[in-house]
């Protein structure tokens, strides 16, 4: 078990190195720092001096891989690659192209993100699985049929419309919650209620249908027939046996996203003005702040790799047969 975990961790580090090289190539080879400077400064103000100044202020003036002018370790460490990419592994995020400290921004902005994402995730899981179990329980009846129709209909609506519609109904028409904004403490609840609700509702269609498929697949297996043959009630079969055995496919999809909850929801946060990492990313994209985007890409993959390892661990919790070697 420990040996397996260590191997997974090493593999995860290799994945992160891959991500790192990929983003470095994307951000420094497809376009050189000069190109970025020109794009940032705008066509009118581009002079060679301005470009050099822009690069110097942000540390892009160094050579990419090998600094001939330095000596000793400095030949490798005093480069763009080391500064901007290798240091990410030590979670030294440096400063954004606007000069703000990215590490500080992330540590303050991840909590509002989590405050939206965690309740939405937990309530969502409960709602989706209950709805799916309900459809599986009444399978091949009108309830199941119309349930699936509702799911397909709901998954055909863009998230944007859920948000706009929700803001209009709850915020503007019924005046129940503020349309957007955020505040700390208990005050946060009234700002969070709508984003959480919309996060849950917008996911119902796709998720409930997906879980229903998983349950129906389990229901057609032999052990279910055995359970029914020994006289168990359908409800008991479903909740006790099917649900437990469906945990592996459910966990495969669910556990991976838990660490990513920190990253926040891009669209929801920017619509509701929640100062989380999602809106941070959106702002960075619209301001073409390459440093922030690069850090977020790296952070996202770190969290994903953690999620993968957590998924493996969770298998051993729900299924005693799973042994890693």
């Amino acid at each position, binding site marked *: 078990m420990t040996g397996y975990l260590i191997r997974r961790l090493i593999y995860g580090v*290799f*994945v*992160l190195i*891959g*991500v790192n090289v*990929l*983003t470095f190539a*994307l*951000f420094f080879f*497809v*376009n050189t720092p000069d*190109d*970025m400077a*020109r*794009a940032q400064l705008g066509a009118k103000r581009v002079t060679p001096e301005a470009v050099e100044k822009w690069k110097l202020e942000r540390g892009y003036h160094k050579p990419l891989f090998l600094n001939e002018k330095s000596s000793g370790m400095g030949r490798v460490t005093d480069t763009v690659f080391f500064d901007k990419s290798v240091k990410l592994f030590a979670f030294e995020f440096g400063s954004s192209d606007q000069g703000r400290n990215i590490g500080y921004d992330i540590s303050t902005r991840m909590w509002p993100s989590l405050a939206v994402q965690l309740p939405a995730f937990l309530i969502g899981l409960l709602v989706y699985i209950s709805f799916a179990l309900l459809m599986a329980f009444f399978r091949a009846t009108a309830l199941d049929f119309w349930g699936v129709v509702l799911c*397909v*209909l709901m*998954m*055909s*609506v*863009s*998230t*944007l*419309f859920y948000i*706009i519609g929700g*803001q*209009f109904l709850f915020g*503007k028409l019924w005046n129940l919650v503020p*349309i957007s904004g955020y505040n700390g403490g208990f005050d946060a609840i009234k700002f969070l209620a709508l984003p959480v609700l919309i996060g849950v509702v917008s996911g119902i269609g796709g998720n409930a249908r997906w879980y229903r498929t998983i349950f129906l697949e389990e229901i*057609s297996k032999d052990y279910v027939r055995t359970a029914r043959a020994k006289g168990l009630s359908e409800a008991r079969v479903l909740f006790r046996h099917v649900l437990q055995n469906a945990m592996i496919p459910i966990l495969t999809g669910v556990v991976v996203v838990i660490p*990513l909850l920190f*990253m926040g929801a*891009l*669209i929801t946060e920017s*619509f509701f003005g929640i100062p989380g990492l999602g809106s941070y*990313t*959106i702002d960075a*994209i*619209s301001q*073409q702040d*390459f440093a922030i*985007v*690069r850090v*977020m*890409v790296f952070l*996202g*993959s770190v969290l*994903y*790799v953690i999620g*993968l390892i957590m998924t493996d661990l969770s298998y051993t919790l729900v299924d005693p047969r799973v042994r890693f070697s």
Partner: protein
Amino acid sequence: MNLLPFRFELLWTDALVWLLVAAVIGYAAYARARPHLRAPWSRVSRSASGMAAAVILAAFVLAGLLDSVHYRPALPPQNGKVAYATELRSLLDLALQPLRVKREKTYSAPLATHLYAKETMLLPDGREVRDFPRLRHGGAHLKNPGADWAGDVTLRGFRGLAVALLIWFTVAVALSAAVAQRSGNGIEQSWGDIWRGRTAIPWRAALCALAALAVFAGPVIALAPHYHVFGTDKVGQDVLYQALKSIRTGMVIGTLATLVMLPFALLLGVMAGYFKGRVDDMIQYLYTTLSSIPGVLLIAAAVLMMQVYIENNASLFPSSEIRADVRLIALCVILGVTSWTGLCRLLRGETLKLRELEYIQAAHAFGVSHWRIMMRHVMPNVMHIVMIALVMDFSGLVLAEAVLSYVGVGVDPSMISFGTMINSARLEMAREPMVWWSLAAAFVFMLALVLAANLFADAVRDAFDPRLVRAGAAA
């Protein structure tokens, strides 16, 4: 000397779209001659929801294809030389000429005769009043809009509806005649069969979908030349025109992105499953790395870099339409490159199973080369997965376009798409009085497109998935 009053212009996306059409026709001809390929498609045609969805999709595809034939109209000749307009038009633009040309000043509500905002106007006698000015085009034929408007709209709407239903009825009768000819029964018998759902192919569902289309399109077509059926947007452009133009953008992204992804997924997935060992490790590492980056972020990073490239190399793109088109293709490529991992994983798993089967072992024993085994013996047997992925991804990509355009990493802002429509309209909900029609139009068109695509994809999946077919046969 060119005598045509226009010059065809083939954009990159046009070329790819028509290539795709050719490929689909080629595949249809190929599959028609082979019973094992025809069987799943005939199963699709027996699904009621699938047929209904196919009818609606066909209407969207028609609009998308019309919008994929571009030309430049000739300008009035000067000094005997023919010059062509810099602005690109499509056949759809030609069909929607009245909608495109009739621009208002700013917002106007659906079917309105007056602008949505009060303006100070100068009366002929020199007095100034603040009132809602008449529209330049919407309902301009009405002498007294207050009294005539309701009657005119109802009359035109009903006239359009009647014509549409008449056409629909003709189609239904023609279909009965065709069914009658096939089955050898009389027309009346076939008509009854269709409506009682007794035909092998569920024509009833298809006709119902066609009726829904007629009920919607009839009045709209009748009213569109005289009113702005879905209102106008901030700069006075007809919203119906925008919604129809958005269809092509969505369809191009939905199809071309999957097309880009296909070679990667197919080749790497099959190779990983077939060779196992080192090759498998490498490919698995590649797709774990790519899929570990949250999708939107990877797309955003790539699109940002593309934007910088386009900005710095503006001279490569002679006109804004060409720039927008190149950006659309680049977006498709980026979406494709970032989304092949899912399908690759499925194909790898399937190939792992297939390679252990006897017929592959036999091929090995006969000394068939690896490449040939993969191409001739493995590929055809994973094609059902590819087909399912192709249709399932479409709706997701159309939805993704809207989100990406909102984030600012989607299509070019000058290109009309559902995303840009929603993006420019989202603040209008907060406006007093509210402007809701842009969003409503985007919502209706997008829902119809995505819902039809989802239903059709379900029908295709049910028909192609061997496990589901078996379960269906047992039941």
